[in-house]
């Protein structure tokens, strides 16, 4: 079975981890660190290996692990003190355990002479023969959970009026008195389920005693007021019945006696008969469910009040008794599982619908119909509907980022152990929703960034202490929605980026000229360059040849951006901003040098008309535009994309004030605005290749392809000196 093989694979991987942990823990003990948590961790390591091995029937491994565990347990309970001698045995045992694991992996046996000696020593530690004999027993032990035949239970509603019970056909069976204590319900057991299980053993009659039930105003909703007499006809023996009450036995009064004759139950005020038969469940149950009391959370039997008309009582009780499963179906949230492919197909179709609707709008305009004509009005409505459909479909794919965030605590723990740093992970905004594809592709970059934060960011505990920080480092992972995008931040309170070192490395690797003048930001961003790795010694944690450049590229492939801010001594923050969906975009359609471009609306703050009084030249080829009280760079999009060599008169165009992820403001100069439109994103990278300054492409209403501008890339390219080409090479 493939899945089993895969799990077995995981098991062996995990064994290796446990063995490492075991060894590290034992060495720590050897160093005199007798922290109970270390002892526990060591114990747990052996324990987990044993548990997993048991699942795969690796008997030899289980047996050895068990002997080892027993000795460990003595250590844990304090029966054994971790003297150097004891620890030496333990360490050797750890090695042998490793041999057993590796032998099991290739289906081999460990030679007896390799393990016999150490087994004796371990048993000696665990004090003698008691440990030896229990080894085999516990390895093979498996608590019997009753294997029972499924017998559906039918409720005979006709018998409700007839409270007098038929005399039971005397045969072998038991008379069970079952009176739950409140603790039974508090521990999550349920009387009806237990009774139903009894019913599976044979034919039963259940009599419910409601005498103890107080009036409604005196009733404790969590109390236990009912008791039952169950008469069971069965060929099973008493132990089978007891097994059912295995979990509940201590929280109830339970007497089981052999069935002798007809029970005198006529004095019981309200009773119900549940008869288990081999028949299918009758539809009448469904009707019964509808009269269930709404408070399904409270233990059911307690919810039944004596004073209510018996008919209703019985409905409720019997429905609960026979159809415990149905209770949930009535209460559970209505969700369905849908094949992802179907959703994707729907999304593609909606994408086509959007394009089609846009085309239709173009044709209508071309036909010269008035904006108030019936066709135009209908088209407007169609557009509304299309948009709503689109939003709804996208919502289907949206998922909370929790699934990715959830994987991180373990990673952090493992890394903390590996690096000897103490780390606390704080996550925020796990409920933030984003498209499934984005989530799936977030895992690797996030893993890498957290690795970096712990390996490079956080300092060793002693360094932290010296710097007046708490020994425990903090790594924070947060997600939030901001202006139509999801922003994910990974921050640490470590030492921040060592700019001198980063710069030196970049010079050494020939990534920058040795006399290059770089600002702090620019130095920070050097770590995103391909082939950059700051670790002086390539550690096996983050220096695996995958650098931040890969992280950056994978984020960019998702239409996202990554930014870094770092403060020496206080830590670094990586901010990723990603689109909520990879399928559609609200954009402003503009003309630049006779080309049609789409600029994401989320980036645009406002539009401005450049005037001779507001546009100023600053240095060579740089223009600024005055916006209210300040000046911001005016970037000619046509020049940046090399459509033309620059415009002489910016006043002929229109400036779009855009805000980049870092919050910087710039103005993009375009020739004209065509309008605002929702466009379907078609990846350029999948079909063509990455184009600097261009995020993706789309198909417009008239069927032509338009490029979608990557505003941040254009802005950052313009900020760098030199020609646009080389600056794009640096950014991309």
């Amino acid at each position, binding site marked *: 079975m493939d899945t089993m093989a*895969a*799990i077995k694979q*995981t098991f062996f991987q995990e064994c290796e981890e446990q063995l490492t942990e075991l060894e590290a823990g034992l060495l720590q003990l050897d160093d005199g660190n007798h922290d109970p948590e270390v002892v*526990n961790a060591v114990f747990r390591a052996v324990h987990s290996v044993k548990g997993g091995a048991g699942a795969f029937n690796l008997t030899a491994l289980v047996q050895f692990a068990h002997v080892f565990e027993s000795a460990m347990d003595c250590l844990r309970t304090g029966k054994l003190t971790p003297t150097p001698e004891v620890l030496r045995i333990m360490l050797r045992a750890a090695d042998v355990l490793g041999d057993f694991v590796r032998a099991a992996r290739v289906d081999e046996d460990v030679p007896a002479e390799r393990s016999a000696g150490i087994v004796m020593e371990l048993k000696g530690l665990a004090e003698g023969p008691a440990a030896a004999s229990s080894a085999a027993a516990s390895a093979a032990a498996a608590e019997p959970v009753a294997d029972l035949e499924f017998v559906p239970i039918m409720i005979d509603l006709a018998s409700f009026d007839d409270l007098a019970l038929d005399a039971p056909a005397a045969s072998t069976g038991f008379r069970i008195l079952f009176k739950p204590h409140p603790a039974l319900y508090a521990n999550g*057991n349920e009387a009806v*389920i237990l009774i139903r299980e009894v019913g599976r053993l044979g034919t039963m009659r259940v009599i419910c005693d409601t005498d103890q039930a107080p009036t409604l105003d005196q009733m404790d909703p969590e109390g236990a007021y009912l008791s039952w007499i169950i008469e069971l006809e069965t060929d099973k023996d008493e132990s089978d019945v007891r097994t059912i009450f295995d*979990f509940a036995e201590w929280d109830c009064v339970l007497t089981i006696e052999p069935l002798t004759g007809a029970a005198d139950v006529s004095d019981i005020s309200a009773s119900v008969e549940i008869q288990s038969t081999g028949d299918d469940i009758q539809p009448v149950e469904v009707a019964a469910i509808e009269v269930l009391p709404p408070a399904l959370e409270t233990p059911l039997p307690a919810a039944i009040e004596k004073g209510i008309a018996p008919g209703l009582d019985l409905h409720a009780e019997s429905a609960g008794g026979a159809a415990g499963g149905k209770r949930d179906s009535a209460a559970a949230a209505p969700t369905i599982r849908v094949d992802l492919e179907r959703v994707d197909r729907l999304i593609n179709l909606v994408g086509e619908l959007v394009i089609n609707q846009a085309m239709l709008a173009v044709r209508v305009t071309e036909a010269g119909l008035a904006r108030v004509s019936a066709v135009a009005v209908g088209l407007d409505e169609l557009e509304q509907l299309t948009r709503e459909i689109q939003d709804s479909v996208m919502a289907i794919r949206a998922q909370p980022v929790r699934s990715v965030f959830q994987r991180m605590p373990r990673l952090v723990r493992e890394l903390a152990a590996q690096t000897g740093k103490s780390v606390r992970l704080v996550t925020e905004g796990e409920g933030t929703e984003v498209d499934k594809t984005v989530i799936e592709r977030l895992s690797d970059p996030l893993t890498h960034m957290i690795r970096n934060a712990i390996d490079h960011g956080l300092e060793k505990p002693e360094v932290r202490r010296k710097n007046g920080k708490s020994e425990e480092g903090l790594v924070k992972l947060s997600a939030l929605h901001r202006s139509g995008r999801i922003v994910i931040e990974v921050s640490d309170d470590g030492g921040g980026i060592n700019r001198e070192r980063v710069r030196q490395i970049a010079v050494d690797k020939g990534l920058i000229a040795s006399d290059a003048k770089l600002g702090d930001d620019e130095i920070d961003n050097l770590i995103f360059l391909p082939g950059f790795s700051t670790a002086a010694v390539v550690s096996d944690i983050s220096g695996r040849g995958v650098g931040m450049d890969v992280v950056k590229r994978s984020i960019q492939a998702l239409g996202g951006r990554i930014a870094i801010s770092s403060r020496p001594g206080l830590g670094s923050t990586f901010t990723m901003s990603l689109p909520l969906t990879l399928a559609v975009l609200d954009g402003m359609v503009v003309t630049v040098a006779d080309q049609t471009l789409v600029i994401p609306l989320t980036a645009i703050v406002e539009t401005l008309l450049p005037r001779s009084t507001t546009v100023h030249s600053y240095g060579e080829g740089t223009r600024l535009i005055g916006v209210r009280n300040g000046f911001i760079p005016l970037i000619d999009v046509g020049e940046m994309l090399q459509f033309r060599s620059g415009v002489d008169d910016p006043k002929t165009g229109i400036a779009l004030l855009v805000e980049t992820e870092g919050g910087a403001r710039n103005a993009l100069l375009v020739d004209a605005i065509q309008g605002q439109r929702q466009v379907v994103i078609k990846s350029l990278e999948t079909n063509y290749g990455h184009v600097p300054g261009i995020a993706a492409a789309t198909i417009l209403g008239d069927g032509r392809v338009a490029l979608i501008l990557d505003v941040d890339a254009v802005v950052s390219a313009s900020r760098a000196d030199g020609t646009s080409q080389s600056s794009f090479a640096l950014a991309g």
Partner: protein
Amino acid sequence: MSKTILTVDDSRTMRDMLRLALSAAGYSVIQAEDGMHGLEVLADSDPDVIITDINMPRMDGFGFISGVRQGGRHRAVPILVLSTESDVEKKARARSAGATGWIVKPFDPVKLVDAVRRVSA
């Protein structure tokens, strides 16, 4: 509508096995890696049954069970303890913490699903 089971276990192998066995039986499975994580996961989910290991880092199974039983909307959810230990003393401690029942490792899928059914449906 399938029932949701929350499994709390620090061993990846065990989590995978539980997921496999329970999904095969038609349950939807959510998972946590230790008691503390389990309580975090519970804050945003509504499992029908919880299966927890005892021996875990950060917060063990006893602590987790007490945490669930202490209050909140999940205090009546059945909790099955999953443990290699089969001795009475461990069971008693799990019970007094509020466990509903137990499953002894190594489990076979049939028994596991049977135990889940016994406390839930």
